[in-house]
Structures are given as C-alpha cells and as structure tokens.
C-alpha cells in the first residue's frame, strides 16, 4: 500500500474543507472496497478523510411518507430495519444477497454506491484495463470475464456495477443527496449516479472530488409486490452474474451495465399488456454481448416478473 495522510473528520464541514484542500483525497467510510483496492495499488489516494464517525447513520421517516437513510448506515443496519423489511423488502433482500455478514457490518450506504467494479481485468494490475489505466486497452472484450455489460458499454469498457443494493434503489426511484465544500446540496436519482463508460471509463460517477454523499431518500413504495433475484456462481458470498429487482410495475436489472439498469422497454411492454417473456425480450433487443448472458437475463427476468405478478414474496 502506498503511504497516505489520514484525517479524522470532526463534522461534515470539516470533511468538506479537508477534501477541498486535498484534490487527491478520498473519503473513507467502512473501507471494505477502498482499502482492498489500495492494497492492490489500484487505488492510490494521497489522503484519506475518515468520515466514519460523522452523524449520518440514522434512518428516519420523510414528510412524504418515505425513508431517509443516512450515508453511514451500515448495510446490516439498513437490511435489519423493520421499516425497510416491511415496506421495501426488495432493498433488504438485495443487500442481504451481497457479500458476507462481516462485510455488511462495516460497509456503508454511501460506500456501497461508490464501490468499484469487480471486473476480473480491473482487479488484475498485470492486465490492460481502460478503467484502471486509461488508454491501456480492455482485456474483458474477447476475454474470459463472465460478467460483461449487455447495455451501455463502449468500445473502451464493458465493466458492470458490483452493487446489488443499487439495483433495488433504482427500482424504488431512490435519490442520492450530496453536499459540496461550497455548501451546495444536490439530489440525483440513484439510477443515474453512475456514468456509462463512453470514452472515459476511469470516471465512475459525476460526483466532484469534494462532493460527499449525505443520504439516500426512498419515496413511498410503489403499490404491488416486490421481488429480488440474484444469479451467482455459488450459493452465497459472491457477486452477481445477473440480478433483477421488480417493484410494482417497475423493473431494474443488475450486473448488466455500469449502472443499475432500469428496463424501461420492459416496463412499457408490461404496461401494454405483454406477457413476462415478451416484456423481458423488449429490453433485450437492444442488448449487445454474449448470447449466453442474454439468455440468462431473459430467463431471470421472465421468472421474476411472473413471480411478481403472482404476488411475490417478502
């Protein structure tokens, strides 16, 4: 690990002023992804700003009937909250299907959103990767990687988001609230927090270096059932080959793009009375990539939509 300075943020303003003064700094919350990548020297920040003790870990009701989840609420805390379990089961399920208990006990809401791809070639410093080393090439295209993007890839990168949680947040129309050193507060949908790779795959999000996630806000849950499904190479503790979140008449796919992928064509087809398989196909006609992955997503989406129409399970 490269040497770095370590700053303990005393409050949000302190964290922001530290970030504004150190352009090469990174915010540190649970650290489960960032420290892993720093050991591999894939991440080499010159300063870590420890925001882990800031008072941003609460979950509260919003005036509009939704929930506001602080950026530092741990994944375990969120998935265990009775309001999340009863009103947003798709979110609890998505979180519980990811990582291990030890990791979820430490990983935060904001950190989960900011985690980087687990693309085999991004994680291997010996291999070319445009996301890790811009201009070095993409080893995943034509490589052995199992989880490459079906949607939104560019000629430079086909990496997919590793966050299960974000797929559920996207289907629930959740928003991310951030603040910058100049005091400006901004809200954006979780769905579009992450950039598509384009010609700059090294940039995951459009967050500024001094922009700190404060909270995620969930609007009231949509009517109808909620379903979460995740396909993976073993029964527990491994990333998704593909995942899906269904909430009412909304559908989001996971591990198929650099961001959680709202399947709007599927949603439109369902609204028009299409059968589950037809509705799944409506999104997949615009997919690129391996036929096996398309087939996997087609069957996964068909099953999940059918289950949701039957009332799902919480």
């Amino acid at each position, binding site marked *: 690990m490269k040497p770095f300075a370590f700053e303990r943020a005393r409050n949000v303003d302190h964290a922001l002023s530290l970030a504004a003064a150190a352009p090469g700094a990174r915010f540190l919350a649970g650290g489960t992804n960032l420290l*892993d990548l720093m050991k591999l020297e894939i991440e080499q920040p010159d300063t870590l700003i420890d925001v882990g003790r800031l008072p941003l870990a609460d979950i509260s009701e919003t005036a509009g009937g939704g929930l506001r989840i602080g950026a530092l609420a741990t994944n375990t805390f969120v998935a265990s909250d009775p309001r999340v379990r009863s009103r947003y089961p798709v979110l609890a399920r998505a979180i519980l299907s990811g990582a291990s*208990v030890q*990791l979820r006990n430490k990983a935060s809401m904001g950190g989960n959103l900011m985690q980087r791809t687990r693309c085999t070639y991004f994680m291997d410093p010996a291999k070319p990767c445009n996301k890790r080393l811009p201009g070095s090439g993409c080893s995943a295209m034509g490589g052995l990687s199992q989880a490459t993007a079906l949607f939104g890839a560019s000629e430079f990168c086909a990496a997919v988001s590793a966050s299960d949680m974000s797929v559920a947040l996207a289907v629930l129309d959740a928003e991310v609230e951030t603040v910058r050193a100049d005091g400006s507060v901004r809200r954006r949908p979780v769905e579009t927090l992450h950039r598509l790779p384009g010609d700059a795959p090294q940039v995951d999000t459009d967050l500024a270096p001094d922009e700190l996630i404060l909270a995620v806000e969930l609007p009231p849950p949509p009517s109808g059932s909620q379903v979460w499904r995740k396909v993976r190479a073993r029964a527990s503790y491994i990333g998704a080959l593909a995942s899906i979140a269904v909430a009412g008449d909304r559908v989001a796919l996971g591990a198929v793009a650099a961001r959680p992928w709202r399947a709007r064509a599927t949603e439109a087809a369902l609204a028009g009375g299409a059968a589950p398989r037809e509705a799944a196909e409506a999104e997949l006609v615009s997919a690129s990539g391996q036929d096996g992955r398309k087939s996997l997503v087609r069957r996964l989406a068909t099953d999940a939509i059918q289950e949701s129409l039957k009332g799902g399970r919480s």
Partner: protein
Amino acid sequence: MRTEIRVNGVDHAVDVDTRTSLLDFLREQLDLKGSKKGCDHGQCGACTVLVNGVRINACLSLAVMHDGDHVTTIEGLASGEALHPLQQAFLTEDAFQCGYCTPGQICSAVGLMAEIAAGQPSDATADLNAKVVLTDAEIRERMSGNICRCSAYPQILAAVRRAAGVAA
C-alpha cells in the same frame, strides 16, 4: 498516528503507521497471533474479530479507524480457564482439522449469536417480517464469510448449533 484502542479489556495508546491494518496491529504490535491472515482481502474470514461487539474482517480495516473502539479477539473470549461456550462447542464437535480458520470461525459465530438475538435477518430468512429462527440453512448462510479449506463445515455447523442450543 495517535490511536487509543481497547483490546480484550486492555487499553492501548499507540502511534501507528496509517497503513497498518487492524489485523497487523493486533498480530504484530500487540502480539495477539490468534487472529489469522489468510487472504488479506476480506474473502476468507480468518481475521474475523469483534469491534464493539460486531464481527468484521480485521484485514479490511485500518488501526487508525478504530480510535476509541473496543476490540475482542479469540484471546479475549475465555474467562480465565473457563472457555467461551463456542470454544467448548468447537472442541466437543471436533469442528476443525488444521485449526487455521478456527479463531475467525469462533469470533464469527459469537457475532452470529448476537445478530440472532437482535433479530437481524439473512439471505436465508424465509419471511423478513417474522422472528428469525436459527435453522441449519441460516447458520450456513451466516457463516459463509468464513472459509475452511479442510472442509470441517458439518462439524462447524454442529458446533454453532450446539452453542445456540438448537437441536439437530
């Protein structure tokens, strides 16, 4: 960087290099070699310790992040010569072969018991809104962050079941 940390009931005020993981701090500076370094990337669970009663991977945490925290390692579980119920259960059920993963397995299981008592659900929980029942499927899922390359999983399952007072 100055860091004050309580480990197994003993207070330490130390200067640590910012790069020092909690695991390396425990092993190299406090000479508590019970917590093991397996993968050093949060994938194997051999480094599992309890921080303020909650299990985490000590390899994916920096010592300087734990200023003011209370850490419990495998060395801190027994009361004198009286083993912790989970340590005794691992002996009774012969829940190890080489033993390298065992401290992490036991600390993980101690955390598991607290999570069950707090009613926290898992991926194996059938009904998110009902009281959590500690079935074999629940134990397996909740212990999936701890790898045992000798594959003592059936005995580890039996040990956790025994300590939790769950019938086979």
